[in-house]
């Protein structure tokens, strides 16, 4: 049994240097993207097939009353109950024993269903490769006992890596300190979607960071939805059967039928 690994993103320690972004690009050999200034330091503006992690620069809605500039490292959360893995029709997305959710590029056919179900908008379709790509928590490094590239690059300790149990312990300790300082802090990823392998320590409401407060699995009520389709479907079929059965033969009374009506 391989121990579950986790990444801890302590948002309160992030200063928005974007070293993790560069390290990710470098290790995974992703080309840079041409972007233009949009009024924010967030760059590129969003995740893409070649940008697997991104620092969000957030000025909250109540900025004028309570001015603060927030940063959050956006990336795949590596959920235990991963919706992307559940809907992948080819089995290309796999949850490994150590908790990493990765997309096998040899098997993915680029149907883009995972793109539509992820509550965090993480998987991105790549037109060049014809596949969907996302953060794989540097599986090649982790397998060889190294930490993911973004973790090694972080100069403030905002991103750390270790066993899931260990990271949760660090998160709780840190939460206590932050709460003493007056921040109501949430350990996002402890229980969300069955628990996640990227744990975010959030000193603000999750929605301010663009995260769903209670992420849901889109497939959770799927059986009932099928049933909800079957029953009225059968009713319509029965109605058509009943309607057609009670009709007299129209084939020989075509002229009168067209004029006088069927009922």
């Amino acid at each position: 049994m391989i121990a579950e690994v986790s990444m801890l993103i302590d948002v309160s320690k992030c200063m928005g240097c974007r070293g993790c972004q560069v390290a990710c690009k470098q290790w995974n050999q992703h080309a840079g993207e041409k972007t233009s200034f949009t009024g924010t330091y967030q760059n590129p503006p969003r995740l893409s097939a070649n940008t697997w992690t991104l620092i969000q620069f957030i000025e909250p809605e109540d900025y004028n009353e309570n001015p603060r500039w927030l940063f959050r490292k956006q990336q795949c959360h590596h959920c235990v109950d991963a919706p992307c893995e559940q809907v992948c029709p080819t089995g290309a997305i796999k949850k490994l024993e150590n908790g990493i959710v990765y997309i096998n590029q040899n098997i993915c056919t680029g149907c883009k269903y995972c793109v539509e179900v992820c509550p965090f908008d993480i998987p991105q379709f790549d037109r060049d490769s014809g596949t969907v790509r996302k953060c794989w928590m540097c599986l090649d490094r982790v397998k060889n006992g190294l930490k993911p590239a973004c973790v090694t690059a972080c100069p403030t300790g905002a991103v750390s890596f270790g066993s899931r149990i260990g990271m949760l312990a660090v998160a709780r300790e840190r939460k206590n300190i932050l709460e003493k300082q007056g921040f109501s802090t949430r350990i996002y990823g402890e229980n969300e979607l069955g628990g996640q392998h990227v744990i975010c320590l959030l000193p603000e409401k999750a929605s301010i960071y663009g995260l769903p407060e209670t992420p849901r699995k889109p497939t959770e009520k799927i059986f009932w939805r099928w049933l909800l389709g079957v029953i009225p479907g059968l009713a319509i079929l029965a109605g058509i059967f009943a309607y057609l059965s009670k009709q007299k033969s129209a084939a020989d009374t075509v002229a009168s039928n067209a004029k006088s009506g069927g009922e």
Partner: protein
Amino acid sequence: MQHYNWGIPVALDLFAAGLGAAIFMVAVVADLAGGRKYRRINTAGALIAPWPVLLGVLLLVADLGKPWRFWEMLLKRSHETLGIESLMFKIGSTMSSGTWLLTIFVLGSLLYLVIALLAYPFKWAATLKKVLGVIGLPFALLVTIYTGILISATDNVLWNNWLLPLVFVSSAFVTGIAAIAFTLAVLQVLKPKSKIGSDVPRLEIMNSRLIVIQLLMVIIFILIGIGSPQMRAMIGTAFGLLWWIGIIGLGLVLPFIISFRSGAKSPQISLFISTLILLGGFFLRYAILISGQIHI
């Protein structure tokens, strides 16, 4: 123009898969309800049912990132050796169950087509047709439902609406009946002296009842989702004209008004209203699919 993750090919598949499956079901039910009496409806349905679904499947395959690797959805490969291990089927993945439903439906409806033609000279084929039709009914019904589940079981505010599958199912039946009426009306126009279009008014009257159900579904669907900006974009800023005048007005209300009493007065009018219904059915899927992907 904004690039959509799922665009026109997927909208066409959602439309065509529901359409073909509903045509099949109406053909089978007509056969069960009236046998030879409804041979025109049955034969027309059997002849046209497989093709929209086949087209939809081909469009879906073409829309893949790697179209030539569509078989990955049918065969499971090992992550380590990449060797083929078994058939690929995942009940929780609507894409996976849909792949199989579409495959089975296309093959089954093609077989049904052959048997339906053989049923004219051979009596045994008429019985076999009924049996095959009954076996095919659940698959066809599931195909129509699949189109709605596929996009409703997603993290999309507009699509994740519990009524969406029913909107698509009722629309599938309405368009399916219109397609059979269209086919029979075309043949009637081509052969004005035949009785080939004699069942068309009956189909239209029946369809007008279903249009009422369809309108009801659409209204409840809108009311459930009205809180989301995507829904308001669909019925207002982005697709408002298409939605109210095209899909609702021309695609449902006008055909209803023309046909609810005694069907269309001539095969030409039948062609006109069934075309409107079919276009409305496609644009219904198109508007919902695209509106859901608008960033607001």
